[in-house]
């Protein structure tokens, strides 16, 4: 085999493998990069915007409204302004929690049997959650 053919085959293989490999790697990793970039764009906005958005002044993420449980306590959690005092008031228990630097707060509240209404109050806003403690005979 002459030298020209060997060089041609080697160059052809290198170009083909590079192109195919590049295509494979791009399709595999580019969506991940795009999703990571999306998170990076969203996170600072979520940290900055709550004060500007009235609906974001107090959010209760747990428990769900009109939910039931068999545990005699429930963790009340949510987000509000960083450092804000949060009053959590229910049928037989109450807590005053402080939101952390990210605005997250959390506290365990005791429940009585049957319907419990949990009021979460901060910054002149109250959000209620209705939780029913199932009776275990």
């Amino acid at each position: 085999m002459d030298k020209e053919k060997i060089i041609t085959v080697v160059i052809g293989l290198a170009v083909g493998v590079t192109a195919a490999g590049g295509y494979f790697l791009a399709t595999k990793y580019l969506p991940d990069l795009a999703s990571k970039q999306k998170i990076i764009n969203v996170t600072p906005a979520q940290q900055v915007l709550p004060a500007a958005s009235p609906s974001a002044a107090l959010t209760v993420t747990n428990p769900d409204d009109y939910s039931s449980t068999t545990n005699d306590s429930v963790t009340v959690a949510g987000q509000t302004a960083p450092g804000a005092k949060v009053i959590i008031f229910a049928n037989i228990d109450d807590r005053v929690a402080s939101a952390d630097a990210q605005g997250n707060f959390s506290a365990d509240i005791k429940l009585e049997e049957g319907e419990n209404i949990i009021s979460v109050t901060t910054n002149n806003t109250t959000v209620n959650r209705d939780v029913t403690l199932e009776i275990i005979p």
Partner: protein
Amino acid sequence: MKKLIKVIIFITVIAFITRPALAVDATPSGNSDILDQLASKAAQLTQGFRRVYTGEIKSVGTTSYTVTTNSGDKLVTTNDATSFFRYRANKHTEINFSALKNGDDLAAIGTIDPQTGEMTAKQIIAKVHRYNIVGLVQSRTDMVFTIKETSGKISKVDLSGLTTNPASIKNGDFIGVIAYVSDPNSDTLTSLRVVDFTK
């Protein structure tokens, strides 16, 4: 030179044809992502689904109640597997279907038909509905306090029945009250519990 270009094109085409073999391990990952997304969506739907109806009994059927809830009238059906309780004075007692009448407050726990909104109850708990009132004391007359809630609503609550002495509560205090309707003809609620958060 022409021969060189032909060979390069040929090898490039061969390399692209064999690429799916390299990418074969990406397929299960893709399926796994879709399955994860479906599982997550299903979990969200399950969590978001109401499993409790609370409200006042509007009418009683043979084996069902029509309950007036915050989201309208709902049919709650019962069967042999349904348990009934009444909660009063910090304890529960077992009751039966016929013990509940029009006007009683209840909480029904069960599964809800997403098409009709009808619930098949697993447990029914009869209990006088409590109201949470959180706000500023505007005024007081004897033991009846007028409270402005954070929503702007004004509520009157009689605190005379409490074991704790409300004498130290004054105008401007931020308080929380658990109360119930003892007289349907009165606009004053009766308090079960009060907490002064100003202290």
